[in-house]
């Protein structure tokens, strides 16, 4: 059923349909509308879940870990400072292989304090062992939450998932969204069956420490699970497409890449703006295309290499900065690595930090910079302030 919903409320609908047993979250802008709506659903009896109003994000994810270890499906949502406050728990959750799904309303990191959008928060946790997917619009954000539970709880994976979407651009934007029927969702996401759980009738110890004789193999197993996740996302994404008509069997999406000489690469809502810019540039005869990265962890290096094999230049638009690195952007570094020594030029453009608007003309100027071999830089700085 298509309805017009605010992004956050569409996410709350996706969570309701996923039927979590325990929700534990702490308010932070711009994530709050999600957990407010979920609290309403629980209060109205529309969602049968325990809702834990924790005193901090640190406890939010810790409580999710406990509930998940006890065999329940759990949900949380956060953003920015909240995610960083959880960082220690994030690594722990992945290490303990709990399939927790968490919404990340992407927002900049302090200092300076900024409540506005960029993707520095989730990118900062790229090595935490969480699967990371990035959505372009409200519908995709809704869909990826359902996909996330299906993938996380698959016994070949058993890893937590960040469903990332741009704060405000998605969380606070009203768009038409196809809200699926609960029976259809139930068929796609079977009840959670934990491999192990805390249970007095079958005692086991969880979260034991490992000496140097054992530690590395645990970390290796997480990495193997990430590799499995790449496959499971494709399988589940393909099934999603068959059931609901929107296919997520690929980790990346192309727009006018077939004959492109120049490729722009990006994640999240800015892809919409880039598509508009490409439409304009194509009218001027410029052979530009877009590669949208949806799955950032596991990083789809093979798909990216294949998708970009025929272009000569690649510009990666980054809403993050890896401070002190030559390329400046964390995603560009990985795209460059994926392409390898193919002779294709890859450059990063750090832009849109702290909510600075990225306009169509910015994309066009960025493409011109790429054509002129200027990149691996901040883009769109106010020179008069420097």
């Amino acid at each position, binding site marked *: 059923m298509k309805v017009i919903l605010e992004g956050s409320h569409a996410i709350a609908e996706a969570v309701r349909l996923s039927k979590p047993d325990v929700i534990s979250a702490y308010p932070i802008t711009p994530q709050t509308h999600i957990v407010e709506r979920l609290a309403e659903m629980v209060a109205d009896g529309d969602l049968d879940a325990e809702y834990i109003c924790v005193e901090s994000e640190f406890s939010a994810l810790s*409580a999710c870990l406990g509930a998940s270890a006890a065999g329940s499906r*759990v949900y949380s949502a956060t953003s920015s400072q909240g995610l960083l406050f959880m960082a220690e728990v994030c690594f722990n959750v992945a290490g303990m292989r709990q399939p927790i799904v968490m919404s990340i309303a992407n927002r900049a990191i302090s200092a300076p304090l900024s409540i506005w959008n960029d993707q520095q928060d989730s990118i900062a946790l790229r090595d935490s062992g969480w699967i990371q997917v990035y959505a372009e619009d409200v519908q995709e954000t809704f869909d990826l939450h359902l996909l996330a539970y299906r993938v996380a709880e698959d016994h070949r994976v058993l890893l937590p998932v960040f469903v990332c979407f741009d704060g405000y651009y998605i969380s606070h934007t009203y768009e038409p969204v196809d809200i699926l029927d609960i029976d259809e969702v139930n068929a796609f996401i079977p009840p959670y069956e934990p491999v192990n759980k805390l249970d007095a009738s079958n005692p*086991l*110890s969880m*979260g034991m420490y490992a000496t140097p004789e054992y530690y590395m193999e645990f970390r290796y197993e997480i990495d193997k699970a990430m590799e499995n996740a790449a496959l499971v996302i494709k399988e589940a994404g393909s099934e999603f497409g068959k059931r609901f008509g929107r296919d997520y069997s690929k980790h990346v999406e192309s727009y006018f890449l077939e004959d492109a000489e120049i490729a722009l690469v990006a994640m999240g809502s800015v892809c919409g703006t880039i598509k508009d810019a490409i439409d304009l540039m194509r009218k001027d005869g410029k052979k530009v295309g877009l590669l949208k990265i949806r799955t950032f962890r596991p990083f789809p290096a093979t798909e990216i290499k294949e998708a970009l094999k025929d272009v000569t230049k690649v510009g990666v638009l980054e809403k993050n900065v890896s401070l002190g690195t030559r390329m400046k952007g964390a995603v560009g570094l990985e795209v460059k690595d994926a392409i390898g020594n193919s002779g294709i030029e890859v450059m990063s453009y750090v832009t849109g930090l702290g909510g600075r608007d990225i306009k169509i003309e910015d994309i066009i100027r960025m493409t011109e910079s790429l054509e002129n071999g200027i990149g691996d830089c901040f883009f769109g700085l106010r020179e008069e302030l420097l």
Partner: protein
Amino acid sequence: MADRSLELVDCGHRACGGCGPAFAARLILKGSGSNSIVCAATGCMEVFSTPYPQTAWKVPWIHSLFQNAAAVASGVESALKHQGRDEHVLCICGDGSTFDIGMLCISGAFERGHNITYICYDNEAYMNTGIQRSGATPFDANTTTSPVGKNSLGNSRPKKDLPRILAAHGAPYVATCSIAYPNDVIKKVERAVNTQGPCYIQIHTPCCTGWGYDGSRTIEMGKLAIETGLFVSFEMVNGKIEKVKKVKRKPVEEYLKEQKRFSHLFKPKPNLEEIAKIQAIADANAEIYGIDLKI
């Protein structure tokens, strides 16, 4: 009532000989029984009992981080509630994770009123990392981060009053006890796990390694702490003291002089002025809790 003959913490773990916390672990589970789930914090007990792939625990046990056991327990309890299960949810954590780094999570869990029993094994410093002071370290104790020196007589602050802080959260049952009185520990744990709501028990667990006494004397140290009035054993129900262990009080020197952590107070000769300050702490405890036996 739980079957007290059950040993739910197995032998063969790696605790020091004469470890107070190891004894506490056995007693706690005799009180809560096999229908228990334990949420542990990083610390001595976690390390001596669960080196992968071995575990001493015969009940379900989970360790996440240093400071989040109360939050993990909140989640476990909520999940059990949703699943219609009835296991007792316990936290068993040291004083560092309880008094210091875990306070945020504990305060939240108690304010929310989860049905959990939070047990602190209080050995009065960070023993696992090499005897650093915590908020539970007593006045004048020599630790590696409150060392005695030309300008220092050891830890300069008194012990934080955590039982009252948690009672002020509205905890229905708050108790203190010592492993020197095993049946008292068992009974208090049993009462806590059968009380609805967040309960707190602080168990005084002498540490031979950190305090500096022979491991054969752990029970004796526990008794001396109670008998001098430096540690008070009580039960507090809905914020009101219900029961206190009364003693014929001994001077604090009898406790202090047996432990290396206080040996600077006696060398080269007894520092009477400083010992008097510690005696004043015991006297204040006696006044507040009425622990003196009237003979």
